[in-house]
């Protein structure tokens, strides 16, 4: 191919000033796949998506879930999604931005959902993750706790759990040693 390189080098000297393709960033395969996921979203009821950075940054977005059944009815929970460049080979990074009293979500917003970590597969998509999150509200699980205290209460005293969840949603009060600002 050296002859080709030679020819190209010569050509370049001649048309030094001709502007080649733009210097704009190329679209990554991960971004394309995400665009597809987003355009095909079929959100569960009581959830909505928003794009705080506008229509040209779909890699970072927020999903708000307002459960209409179960312990968390009446609450409004915001999750931030950050989609890595290597999506879908890497799972989206999801955090709960609303302080919540939940056995599977800790007070820092870390979410214990299997498909976000150990069980993530490239065939899954954003829709599956959102369904997984809404499932956490209908079926909190005390067997895989991130918030140990909440898990113990759910297991040992479901009535106290209901009242604690209520307090945390209504807010401006303490549940155990933690203060909740409220989210209804």
């Amino acid at each position, binding site marked *: *191919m*050296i002859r080709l390189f030679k020819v*190209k080098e010569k050509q370049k000297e001649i048309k030094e000033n001709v502007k080649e393709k733009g210097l704009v960033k190329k679209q990554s395969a991960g971004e394309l796949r995400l665009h597809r996921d987003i355009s095909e*979203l079929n959100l569960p009821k009581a959830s909505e998506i928003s794009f705080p950075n506008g229509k040209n940054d779909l890699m970072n977005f927020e999903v708000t879930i307002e459960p209409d059944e179960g312990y968390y009815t009446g609450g409004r929970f915001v999750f931030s999604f950050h989609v890595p460049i290597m999506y879908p080979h890497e799972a989206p990074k999801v955090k709960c931005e609303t302080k919540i009293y939940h056995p599977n979500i800790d007070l820092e917003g870390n979410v214990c959902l299997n498909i976000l970590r150990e069980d993530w597969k490239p065939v899954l998509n954003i829709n599956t993750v959102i369904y997984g999150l809404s499932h956490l509200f209908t079926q909190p699980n005390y067997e895989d706790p991130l918030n140990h205290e909440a898990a113990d209460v759910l297991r040992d005293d479901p009535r106290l759990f209901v009242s604690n969840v209520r307090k945390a949603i209504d807010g401006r009060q303490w549940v155990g040693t933690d203060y909740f600002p409220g989210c209804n």
Partner: protein
Amino acid sequence: MAAEPTAQESRSRDLDKLLLRPGNLVGPNFEPGPALRDDLKEYGRVLVVGAGGLGCELLKDLALSGFRKLEVIDMDRIEVSNLNRQFLFRLEDVGKPKAEVAAKRVMERVSGVNIVPHFCRIEDKELEFYSKFSIIALGLDSIEARSYINSVACSFLEYDSDDSALEETSKPMVDGGTEGFQGHARVIVPGVTPCFECTIWLFPPQVKFPLCTLAETPRTAAHCIEYAHLIKWDEVHSGKAFDPDDPEHMKWVYNEATKRAELFGIPGVTYSLTQGVVKNIIPAIASTNAIISAACVLETLKIASGCSKTLSNYLTYNGAEGLHTEVTEFVKDKDCLVCGPGVLIQLDTSITLEKFIDLLKEHPKLLLSKASITHRGKSLYMQAPPVLEEMTRSNLSIPLFDLIGKIPKDVVHAIGTTTKNDKKTSCLRKLRVVFKGVDGIADMDTAGET
């Protein structure tokens, strides 16, 4: 064509055997002779991406294989732990940029070679920078970086109206990778061989531990380290991002992991394991780097000179027990969104986005309905969700030509549904749009941002 007598004494004696003599197993258009050797010096411009374990080897091997115009790009500085295998670096170099020291050391040892170092991220360079090289050699340790360089190199590839790749626009890459005693060397010629993205499924998924295991029932040293890294860090440093390249941060994680391991009676947390788990590091072995680099540089020489047919197209090496090598010929994904031709569409500059979306419904190769359109990461029109539809609706009445910045030809992507065997399926297609009657000079008007 006999070698000149002086060449016998020259330092390129062994190289001359490849470049000056004809052969039966040579590549197409191979023209042996001293002119070829000279052209290699003059026109063989190679970019080495990464100046780490592989990068040091690649630079040295390229310089000794007759290449004279080299450049190297790396964003890292030299650390003490690099010195066992990154042989161009000395103790007094610790803290200096790898690219700069590597370039300097090779130039000191190999006369006549010129190496331009670039101490920056690969994303910091513009497309024009990458376009000037004849071949790009990759000595990287991450999938992300490979994927990025691949998309850059493939972006130069052009196709003719019959969807045949134009050879003169193809930017060949040679990719090396090592992990302990194992390694690979592959040749990527966009448009001819599969590109990196065509075979991205080759990479095994990363092992990730469930968060609740980390929080509740750690069983291994790695669990304790990931707990400190993923959960404890956020608890203590609210809002401050963890930086794996900051030794202070790493030390903190190590200390926390040690405390946790003691609490659960788990042995084995060390500082180097902490680095390994957090940064996903597998100990590198100098000889593996040397072998893989040699294979890569030989391929680089073959591509450039045609002195032999190139590897076709993926060599795996395993030196863990005895020695095992194998070459696999992977095939291109014809619909690859990165290196594939996409569907060619000729348009008038007056066509609005709405009309364009309508056209896709009738295009015989597409039959794509309800299409959403993106261009270089920007959403031109999104059919859903409603919030994005609303934000992009105003683009529908604007000519596509204006929306993509009045470029005579470019690639856009369409996501929509087609009907196959009476079943609706979703698909994502690459479209090469070419505007009729526009010359290469860009209009001075700027496209309206909406």
